[in-house]
């Protein structure tokens, strides 16, 4: 079995980070003064993380015991096979853009995960996927993901590393290259999955002009309207992070989606409770001329639990 090329990079990145961590911890231990070790003001955030981690572990365990959750249909993900099938029939490539940020951005990691799923289908359909990247590390990660997907699809010969290239770290130089390549090669399906900024609309409008099926996913809320306006399907926010688990269909990963939903339910409950208590406190204060401390305290407590630092009962 050929050795995945990017592994040595992952090892190097992680080793470098660990060495830095050890050095920093040793230096910091000498400088610790009277301040408490734990940052009390971040307790609500830690509580949230522990709760979500606990819910994740619980739902993964539940899924493994044969109770996988039912996931609602996500149109954008249902269309992935259709888009790749169209590209195969037309004899044109599939274009996948994993954003313009590096591997330290969680959106890029989610994009590369999604690339693995897309590349597997591409290999099964005997199509071609082009992945221009704007960071060298992303190129290595993308190559590794595509190679592993081709192997998983039983088509190791389908892996073409020359189709996964580094273009430029410069935002608009990368945009110009991708726009030119789209106009010349006319990919039949375009995937934009990752972190995007001003270039999002340039990509999406160029793709629209060449008649490609376009599926986008990003967590940059300022770019979502552009993708929604110009693409056929858009994964909005959390859907983008759920995409990999959704497409895999594996019980473990689907269990984590249920934990995500449980977190959302908790947030919604707290938002409603906070709004009701804050409103009641205001209304009653207006009516009687005095604030109602119990409600004000409840509202402030909920705000603190949500992580608002400046919340107080005053």
């Amino acid at each position, binding site marked *: 079995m050929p050795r995945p090329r*990017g*592994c040595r990079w*992952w*090892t*190097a990145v992680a080793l470098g*980070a*660990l*060495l*830095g*961590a050890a050095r*920093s*911890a040793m*230096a*910091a231990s000498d400088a*610790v003064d009277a301040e408490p070790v*734990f*940052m009390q003001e971040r307790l609500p*955030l830690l509580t949230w*993380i522990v709760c*979500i981690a606990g819910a*994740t572990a619980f739902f993964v365990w539940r899924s493994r015991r044969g109770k996988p959750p039912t996931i609602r249909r996500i149109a954008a993900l249902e269309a992935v096979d259709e888009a790749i099938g169209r590209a195969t029939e037309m004899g044109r490539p599939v274009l996948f853009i994993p954003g313009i940020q*590096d591997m330290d951005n*969680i959106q890029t*990691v989610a994009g590369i995960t999604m690339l*693995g*799923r897309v590349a597997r289908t591409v290999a099964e359909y005997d199509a071609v996927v082009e992945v221009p990247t704007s960071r*060298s*590390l992303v*190129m*290595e990660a993308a190559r590794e*993901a595509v190679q*592993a997907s081709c192997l998983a699809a039983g088509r190791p010969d389908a892996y073409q590393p*020359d189709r996964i290239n*580094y273009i430029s770290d*410069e*935002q*608009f130089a990368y945009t*110009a*290259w991708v726009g*030119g*390549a789209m106009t*010349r090669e006319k990919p039949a399906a375009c995937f934009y999955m990752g972190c995007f900024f001003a270039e999002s*609309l*340039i990509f999406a409008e160029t793709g629209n002009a060449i008649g490609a099926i376009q599926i986008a996913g990003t967590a940059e*809320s300022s770019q979502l309207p552009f993708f*929604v*306006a*110009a693409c056929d399907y858009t994964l909005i926010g*959390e*859907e*983008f*992070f759920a995409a990999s688990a959704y497409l*895999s269909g*594996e019980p473990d*990963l689907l269990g*984590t989606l249920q934990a*995500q939903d449980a*977190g*959302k339910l908790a*947030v919604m409950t707290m938002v409603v409770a906070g709004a009701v208590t804050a409103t009641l406190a205001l209304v009653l204060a207006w009516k009687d001329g005095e604030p109602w401390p119990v409600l004000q305290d409840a509202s402030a407590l909920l705000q603190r639990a949500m992580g608002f630092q400046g919340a107080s009962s005053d």
Partner: protein
Amino acid sequence: MLLQRTIPLWIAIAAGFLMLASSFLRPTQGLGEDFANAFSVIAAIAFVLGAGSLLKANLAKVSRRDAGWGFAVVTLAAFLITLTVGLFKVGVHPSPEFPTAPFSGSQQAADTPFGWLYEYVMVPLTSTMFALLAFFVASAAFRAFRAKNAAAVLLLVTAFIMLLGRTFAGVVLTGWLPDWASGLRLENLSVFVMQVFNTAGNRAIIIGIALGVAATSLRILLGVDRSWMGGGGRG
């Protein structure tokens, strides 16, 4: 398998938990910056691979006379010229602190060939690409604002309120409204739309994104999802 997947996975998990700890424990507070520095060093080394890939892909395109091979020649020429000028500090003036050392100045100064390339080639090209956005916004808006159904009509009306409310046209058109109806003035309506509807929708999306980020990070930290290392699912 041990070297390719297991060890990198455990190193990544350990590094992830250390980063998490650095957000809550004071003695480990500086870890975040150290991790970022380590990442920058590795990324800089990886840049050599990127440059190699760029050269290889463009040289292959030129030799095969693929569509647009002329652009590949321009790319290669621009890359090599910029690399040479920057790396060898061509035309750089000595630093005032070390006037006898010819390479002591910075190549990023405005009066150097490297600075000239940036100021008179890079900046105009970048601005040109950015300026294209205006036309793309117009074409996307034209498509998006067609009144095809009730939702599209709502979008169109909201867009008009925003466009007019954020210009003097809004003041001219609805400035005559009396004070008791000032909430209906376009400039006030646009503020209301931004502060209420837009903020509510945006916060809902942002909360969803935050939970998605947390769930994805935990999937990776707990080793449930290993597809980021290549392959599907748990690999």
